């Protein structure tokens, strides 16, 4: 056996060597050099395979649709737009790698991408190092403001807070069950909400129930019956759900089967949109709520046009639109506008130009890019209908500006972000007037001293 191996080694290994070298060469030759008359390259960084493909693949199609429309309208600065699609395969390190590929190898001018917070966190250092532009379209936990990232989804104060205020003021809820999947978005959102409920509305400790479940949790019997008992104490009760993706179907099924009706204990969800509902039989869920900045049922012509375009693009009569798609719609138009304004796709120029840019959203209003790289959005509360759509029952009188740093978290209370000159800082501390970090530093030193 050993003798054999030894015989074969030289050849085998020389092949292995050639393979390696070939790889090196391919890698090298793959990179192109951008000339001015080249099309503008738009990178799309959404998972097309793996667990996140469910949500992200439609966003990829959305951006492609927007690019098509832009090209039909004559492109940008007289140049055509070209989509560069890569697949990070729902694998977080791969997100970083792909982002690097897009920026270093493909040299794209802008990236639209990411869904999960972790994928954004993975990409962040790359985008900052290579000075790229990233438009992130999903509602998230906030607590972040990067010079190179534009957050077109909702920050907690554009979704969670108004939703809770609706529950308290319009529905008269006094007891809250905060149910979420165990990852950073629910954790942060729920901490913000807890603080908000206690400080602003004097809700008592025992009137707040918090529970976390793993991803794709499928057995909700115990938790739902807990919720039922929690709601039987005579006070009007609501569930605030930050349950993610797949876990929702079994959750709502269990709710329905244990006979929890929206009229008794309404569930308001922050991660359940039209697309998630398309996988559920909504008849038993009528009246449960969701808070978003856009619903497919929004009654404006802009929206109906968008829907028609989308259905045409996908060729699927049943195709639904949802909030992150609108976020990309807004983000894309903002970027296009900024490029026109700057007259170039140069990242630094666009970064400066885009602040203050205002474009129409799909719900009949306007979205403006704030200095903290978040945008203004209306907040809508919708009730689930038996046709898998939401009926908008409430909305904020005016749009709300996204808040990078929550006012309800000790760590970030006194942080602000402003990327305009001269401040140009993502975490400016208004207390000690320095860029970089909160007073938590001093607090910690004090803590250590003890």
């Amino acid at each position, binding site marked *: 056996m050993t003798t054999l191996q030894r015989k074969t080694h030289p050849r085998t290994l020389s092949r292995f060597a050639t393979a390696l070298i070939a790889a090196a060469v391919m890698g090298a030759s793959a990179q192109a050099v951008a000339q001015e008359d080249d099309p503008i390259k738009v990178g799309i960084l959404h998972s097309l395979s793996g667990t996140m493909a469910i949500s992200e693949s439609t966003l990829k199609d959305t951006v492609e649709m927007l690019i098509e429309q832009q090209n039909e309208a004559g492109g940008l600065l007289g140049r055509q737009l070209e989509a560069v699609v890569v697949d990070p395969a729902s694998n977080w390190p791969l997100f970083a790698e792909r982002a690097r590929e897009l920026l270093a190898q493909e040299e794209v001018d802008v990236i639209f991408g990411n869904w999960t917070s972790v994928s954004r966190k993975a990409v962040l250092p790359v985008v900052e190092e290579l000075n790229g532009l990233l438009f992130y379209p999903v509602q998230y936990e906030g607590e972040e403001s990067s010079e190179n990232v534009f957050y077109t989804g909702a920050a907690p104060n554009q979704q969670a807070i108004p939703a809770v205020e609706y529950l308290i003021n319009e529905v008269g809820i006094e007891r809250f069950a905060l149910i979420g999947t165990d990852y950073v978005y629910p954790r942060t959102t729920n901490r913000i909400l807890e603080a908000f409920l206690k400080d602003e509305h004097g809700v008592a400790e025992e009137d707040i129930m918090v529970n*976390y479940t793993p991803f794709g949790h499928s057995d909700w019997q115990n938790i739902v019956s807990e919720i039922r008992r929690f709601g039987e104490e005579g006070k009007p009760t609501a569930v605030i759900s930050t349950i993610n993706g797949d876990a929702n179907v079994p959750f709502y099924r269990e709710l329905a*089967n244990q006979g929890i009706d929206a009229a008794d204990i309404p569930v308001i969800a922050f991660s359940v949109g039209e697309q998630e509902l398309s996988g559920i039989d909504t008849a038993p869920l009528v009246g449960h709520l969701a808070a978003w900045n856009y619903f497919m049922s929004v009654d404006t012509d802009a929206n109906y046009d968008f829907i028609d375009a989308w259905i045409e693009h996908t060729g699927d009569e049943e195709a639904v639109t949802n909030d992150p798609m609108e976020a990309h719609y807004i983000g894309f138009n903002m970027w296009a506008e900024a490029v026109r304004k700057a007259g170039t796709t140069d990242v630094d120029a666009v970064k400066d130009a885009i602040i203050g840019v205002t474009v129409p959203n799909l719900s009949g209003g306007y979205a403006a890019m704030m200095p903290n790289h978040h945008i203004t959005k209306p907040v809508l509360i919708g009730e689930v209908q038996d046709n898998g759509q939401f009926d908008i029952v409430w909305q904020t009188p005016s749009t709300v500006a996204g808040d990078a740093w929550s006012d309800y978290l000790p760590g970030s209370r006194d942080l602000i972000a402003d990327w305009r000159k001269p401040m140009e800082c993502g975490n400016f501390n208004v207390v000690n007037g320095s860029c970089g970090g909160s007073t938590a530093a001093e607090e910690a030193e004090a803590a250590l001293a003890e």
Partner: protein
Amino acid sequence: MRRFLSLGLLCLVLLSTAMTAQAQSDPSTPDDQAALALLSALDVNSYRDKGEAITAILQSDDERARDWLQALLDGRLQRADDGRFVLVLDNRGRDWPVADALTKESLGDMSRRDLDRIGINNALRNQLRSAIAVVDLYSPNVERRRSSADRLLGEVDGELAETLEPVIAEAEDDHVRMRLTQAVAIYRAEQGEMAGVEALTGSLHPRARVALGRAANSDDPIVADAAAAALAGIEQQLKINRGLETLYFGLSLGSVLVLAAIGLAITFGVMGVINMAHGELMMLGAYTTWMMQQLLPGQPGLALILSIPAGFMVAALVGIAIERGVIQFLKGRPLETLLATFGISLILQQLVRTVISPLNRTVVTPEWMSGSLVINDALSLTLNRMYVLGFALVVFAGLMLIMRRTRLGLEVRAVTQNRAMARSMGIRATRVDIMTFALGSGVAGLAGVALSQLTNVGPNLGQNYIIDSFMVVVFGGVGNLWGTLVAGLSLGIINQVLEPWAGAVLAKIIVLVFIILFIQKRPRGLFPQKGRAAEG
């Protein structure tokens, strides 16, 4: 809410008179102008005004009132651009068939763009339900009367209590009488009246508990003590019920595990094949159910029942393909079968993603499977899970029969004991292999059909169960169906008992660690195969 009810009462009197009036003379339809006015009042933005409008409709003696309210409740009462009010008959897709709200005659299809629905929120929904309940209390339909009686628990105020007394007296239906009595009792208890407290003693209904709670701190000490005593008794009852509930949860989770694992117990335990694609075979079963429901729109129940054999066949056929295509070449190399079948699982998943869709599919739960079986006010068992539990036991019994009583079972056992010997006795080992694997796969398909009623039907369905199922088989003892049953159910119960205090994640981890340690102690599981056969 009480406000609406009292108002509801007024109209109620009117309604009843209206009814009697109708009894004698021919129905006098009020002119549609009035009706239109009533409805137009609904087409406003403020929900408060809508509330008023609803009351107005109640008070009108128009016999279409109930239909309107129901339509409003279902969100099917809408207004067309031409100002007409219409009832939407089916609100799926982009164009909806509608009928005139006043004349009930069909107006064909209308586009969403031309329709404005009259939105309501949960508050109004409650108001409507209560109002309809009050109306229904006099409905000739006993079901309606019952549901309205249920509805009135904890919604009674003094005025209503008065009016209810005679209704209780006349009610011929026991359930209605019982509920209404409770409803009144709750009101009385909350008022701190002894009668109410006594009537509520032993009642497990949450509203009753709340009422007693209020009574317990009433200023009348006697009442307070009585209420406190009643509460204590109820708490006892609740504890017991809670225990039963947890047990049920455990069994139902266990039954899912058993269903998922039992097929493996055959392919793995009997054939020694590590079928990593087992989960995907379950997925195929689930998708078959979905397919069936697409083929038979409108009768999910029938579709579900038909998909039991269908799911079995589909999975079994794929199983045979796998066995012929791959596994037969890997005889006696279990670890290789593990890798190969894992590859197959990836392929099947991606196949579903590309051919059908990466999105989850909607599988409708048939009427007779949704909701729950009410044991008492504190304990009700969800029906779908009960069916799954029963299904699991039936499947298990079926497999036992096949293995113990049929020729196939005999041959299978023979082949697993001693292949060469079995061959020489004229058993066609290859055929037996195919049959066994098909059987195991088919059972996986059945599991999928059942799971489609509990969880997502999507490409990842299989992955979520594969590891658990292997755990169950190994824990129970490979090649031992009883072991699988016991292991599945007990793991389910352990998990559900742990969950309340450990949390879902930790509970799962604890169970896994427990199994790992257990395997160290007893490498061959709960019920190991004995003798030399096990050595191989």
